[in-house]
């Protein structure tokens, strides 16, 4: 990816109707923490670079897996992304958040790699479907007719005394969640990874994936429900 592409990713959240000359006060997309780390990075602080890698590497790997064939290729794509980040750091002006900028580079590179290897087509064939008309929760779990139509016919059963800590300690539950996430269609997986696994704010996810908030929540809810259903099955 060339420097122009890196710059264009940064500026993607800008209003094109505003002339650059009029943007006297440059809006900053950086959080205070990002502002600090960016200053350290630009001064060549290797510790800051390590922190940045530790913070975002996981999300980048999981996102790259959406576009390429296997883990090994995803690792390569992420390494290329970090190289591009290092090389373009001095040109980054902080108009979007650092994370949005880095993820934008990753998506561009991963898509490019996926297309080049023509493997994205193969994935689609194996992916579970994401039909826009599908309801997140199986409609047959609700009463269809009568006074109680729309109310639970087969309600969820309580997961006895489950807490996040207990669930995370249960290999069966974590494995089933990981598997459920891995098998989500790409459009659902990317929102779940960004929003829930990596904790990116909804607005930033929309900006990054260029989707509306309505669309985000349609996808996110389907993704969460599929993962919930997988845990429900695993816990029996």
């Amino acid at each position, binding site marked *: 990816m060339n420097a122009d592409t890196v710059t264009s990713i940064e500026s993607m959240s800008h209003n094109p109707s505003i002339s650059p000359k009029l943007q006297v006060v440059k809006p900053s997309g950086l959080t205070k923490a990002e502002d600090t780390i960016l200053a350290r*990075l*630009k*001064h*060549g602080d*290797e510790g800051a*670079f*390590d922190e940045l*890698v*530790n913070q975002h*590497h*996981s999300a980048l*790997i*999981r996102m790259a897996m959406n576009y390429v064939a296997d883990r090994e290729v995803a*690792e390569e794509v*992420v*390494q290329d992304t*970090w*190289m591009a980040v*290092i*090389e373009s*750091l001095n040109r980054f002006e902080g108009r979007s958040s650092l994370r949005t900028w880095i993820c934008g580079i990753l998506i561009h590179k991963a898509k490019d790699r996926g297309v080049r290897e023509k493997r994205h087509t193969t994935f689609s064939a194996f992916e579970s479907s994401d039909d826009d008309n599908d309801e*997140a*929760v199986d*409609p047959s779990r*609700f009463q269809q007719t009568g*006074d*109680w*139509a*729309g*109310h*639970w016919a087969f*309600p*969820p*059963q309580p*997961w006895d005394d*489950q*807490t*996040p800590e207990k*669930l*995370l300690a249960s290999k069966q*539950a*974590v494995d089933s*969640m*990981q598997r459920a*996430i891995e098998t989500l269609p790409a459009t659902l997986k990317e929102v*779940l990874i960004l929003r*829930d*696994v990596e*904790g990116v704010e*909804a607005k930033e996810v929309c900006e990054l994936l260029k989707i509306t*908030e309505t669309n985000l*929540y349609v996808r*996110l*809810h389907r993704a*969460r*429900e599929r*993962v*919930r259903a997988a*845990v*429900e099955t695993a816990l029996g």
Partner: protein
Amino acid sequence: MKDHRPQWIQSGPSCRNVAGLASEYLDDCLPVLTNVRVGLHLASCADCRIYMKQMALVCEVAAGLPKQYPSPITRLRLRQHFACCHSPSS
């Protein structure tokens, strides 16, 4: 005698509606009135409370899934490249 739903339940959202709004409710991004309606439904519906609790648990567990880090060799390569491009003396 047939068991009819109380009138006030009929006027509110159904379980199906509430289940469909669960993610937006958990992220606190529903319009105020809808948020109140979902909250009232939850107060009276144990099944929907279970569903909502499970969805919240999924979000919390997803956030706690194991982090992934670069291999030592990749990290070394990246550090070297960073030092080469951003060394304070360069």
